[in-house]
């Protein structure tokens, strides 16, 4: 293991003169030697070190960005534990597992790409970047199949979860739902000081037929089967030949509020997917520059920093996977 760079010690402790503080006299000679060195940095190390700190700060913002969703997940799971443990079985663990492996492998090739860039192996760098890119494509393809499968089964977000749009009736209703505001506050014409409260759905366990009465109100806290009944949809309860794709509507064991699981599932994996797409753009850009021969053992900061971004995408998936697919 070769450490070529003596790491500056506790340079940021606020005492004494800084060893990473810049130095104009030193700078000018370095600028002549390294054309990539920007005018306000003194040495390649100075530039590299600043870029790394900047990237780590950006990664911290990414952690907090996803952190909000993780917090939402924790609160919802804490509120509806039965929903999470039950609905999780609607996800395909094997597909999720394969996707995890694909991302880990692409992370490995990215780490190798950085190594190849550091050691001037242009061909290795290009191959590794292509492999990483392929990994990203593979991940998105598997994700695409997962999503389309779920959407086909109507395991979707929001009210549509209870109203399969494949159904002619359902389609009409889904449209209505998307147009009408889900809750409405109406002023009493007699006495404007009194507000009628939003028409919330009643507790379905009490009276499933009441759901129909508040039919355009949000579906609230109903189990999928009760909702399907109330909507007048075929549930297949008495008809064994019934083959509706939305099997969760006939799943009597599925707890109320199951749509919440899928809402947070799509929110988190969707945002992660957007990050994978962004990562693909970054890798493609690195590839273009690598082919142009921009990187060498002197200058590989973009590969390193792009790699850090790709690893954080992997890191987030490492947590998403057990939180959604591995609930017993």
């Amino acid at each position: 293991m070769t450490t070529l760079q003596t790491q500056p010690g506790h340079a940021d402790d606020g005492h004494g003169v800084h060893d990473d503080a810049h130095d104009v006299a030193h700078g000018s000679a370095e600028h002549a030697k390294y054309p990539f060195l920007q005018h306000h940095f003194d040495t390649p190390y100075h530039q590299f070190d600043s870029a790394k700190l900047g990237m780590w700060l950006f990664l911290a913002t990414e952690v907090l960005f996803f952190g909000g969703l993780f917090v939402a997940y924790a609160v919802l799971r804490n509120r509806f534990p039965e929903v999470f443990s039950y609905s999780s079985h609607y996800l395909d663990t094997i597909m999720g597992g394969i996707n995890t492996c694909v991302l880990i492998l692409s992370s490995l090739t990215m780490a190798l790409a950085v190594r190849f860039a550091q050691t001037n192996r242009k061909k290795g760098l290009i191959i590794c970047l292509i492999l990483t890119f392929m990994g990203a494509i593979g991940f998105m393809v598997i994700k695409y199949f997962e999503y389309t499968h779920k959407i086909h089964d109507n395991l979707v977000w929001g009210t549509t979860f209870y109203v399969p749009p494949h159904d002619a009736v359902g389609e009409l209703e889904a449209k209505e739902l998307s147009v009408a505001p889900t809750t409405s506050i109406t002023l009493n014409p007699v006495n404007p000081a009194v507000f009628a409260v939003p028409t919330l759905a009643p507790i379905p366990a009490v009276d499933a037929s009441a759901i129909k009465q508040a039919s355009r109100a949000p579906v609230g806290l109903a189990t999928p089967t009760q909702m399907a009944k109330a909507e007048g949809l075929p549930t297949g309860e008495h008809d064994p030949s019934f083959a509706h794709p939305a099997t969760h509507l006939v799943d009597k064991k599925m707890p109320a509020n199951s749509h919440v699981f899928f809402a947070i599932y799509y929110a988190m994996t969707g945002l992660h997917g957007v990050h994978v797409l962004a990562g693909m753009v970054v890798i493609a850009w690195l590839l273009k520059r690598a082919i142009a021969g921009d990187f060498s053992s002197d200058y590989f900061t973009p590969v390193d920093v792009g790699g850090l971004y790709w690893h954080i995408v992997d890191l987030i998936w490492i947590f998403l996977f057990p939180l959604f697919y591995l609930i017993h």
Partner: protein
Amino acid sequence: MTTINLSQPLDTATRPDNYLTHTRGFMSWAFTLDHKRIGVMYMVSVLISFFVGGVFALLVRTELLTPGQTIPGVTADVYNHFFTLHGAIMVFLVIIPSIPAALGNFIMPIMLGAKDVAFPRLNLFSYYLWLFGALFTVSSLLLGGFDTGWTFYTPYSTTTPAGGVIPALTGVFILGFSSIFTGLNFIVTVHKLRPPGMTWFRMPLFLWAIYATAIIQVLATPVLGITLLLLIVERAFNIGIFDPSMGGDPVLYQHFFWFYSHPAVYIMILPAMGIISELISVHAHRHIFGYKFIALSSIAIAIFSFLVWGHHMFTSGQSPLLNTLFSLISFSVAIPSAVKVFNWMSTLYKGNIVLNTPMLYALSFLVLFTIGGLTGIHLATLNTDVHLHDTYFVVAHFHYVMMGSALIGMIGGLHHWWPKMTGRMYNENLGRIACIIVFIGFNVTFFTQFFLGSQGMPRRYYDYLPEYQIYHVISTIGSYIMASGFLLTAYYLLASLFGGRIAPANPWGGRSLEWQCASPPPFDNFATQPRVGDCYDFTAIRWDEKEQGYVTDPALDSTKNSQFAAKNLH
């Protein structure tokens, strides 16, 4: 004095090359990577937004002159749009970027002794993000407006029929990223671009404040981003995370929102505190008292800011345990804030106070911030907050802090660094008069609102009982006085660009590095490596009649011979 040519245009060949004259043309500004030009672009944009937000404020105040409708055509619904836009523009477009992005961008690298910020391209990118975010936010006006208040509380924000909610949310989301990248840039700049001799505890206090602000920007704003994204998705697809009728939790939204927005309050106030430290020390010509305490209290405030968000939610159904906890921690914020105020007071003691415009603004800040801070104690107390929550008392409190402190600090800083930015001096007497008008107008407007609120007038209401009218009339008159003060400020500042006296390098007798370079600064900030000493040691500063500004007396300059002048450290 006799040699000054008042009719000299802004950029003449007789003056040395500076950042304004270095390159020319629209493109040289639109694609500039120079932190000074980006700072000026921010400043212009922020001041335009301030004007727009101010117009909405005056509309709100005018509408409240009488109970019921006052301005023809302004219905309750239109009124809701007015105060929402006033709040959103002032918070997201004006106060948050005003000091860090506008003044900070211009002054921070020079004060630090650096040539630029660490990532100049990212800096320009943040500016364009700001611009796009601003366009989105304002374009929501054309798409049906938004009437949710700047806080976008659910479930109202997910159900209101106003069509502009999603564009406005998108705009604020983009503005958030602009803020994140600015903060990121500043942290790296402070860490990595300090010249030799500029140790942490030699940095001017403005830099400490900007650094503490940047930490909050980087660590809090992403949570706002994800909150707004979830809100957009909730509104568009009804996914049921915040919607109670879908099994969601609207209090969760408030937690999310305030996890950012409380620290955001410190994004506004901390850099203003930094400016005040500079103004008071420079214009009293006295070494700042308790340097380390002021510096570290900025960091302490940054840390506390993450632990008090729940004090916005005492009446929202938040649990008693968290209410108590947040109330307790909110009280503790008073400690670092008071450390600062007492140190500023001690700095003034026996100082050679010059009552010019920046100093008047600094003194206004001290008064207004103290009132704003102390009324915060009433609101942090659980039982009084139940009575005062969502009344005009809260409105008055946060205007004292956000406007009376953050914006007044920003305007004071603008006057302080105006000669450095433009190379021109403004009319000092008009400046003093305008400051006094603003101070009087501000207090007439907002002190009245404390009475209004403690008597029970709720905020954001269109209509009110007749017994409140007298207070509303006084408050509205105050807002007109304040507006006239700002118009006067705009007049003499603009006039100074064309006819102002040429500014010397050091018009106030400052000691920090930005006063060592010319006014306006050259393109590369410093031709030679600046000498870093104690930036609050004014012993070597002398008035020079020929310069019409202050110069450093070489005989007394302790940084002259030893670059690291350790003996000057306090």
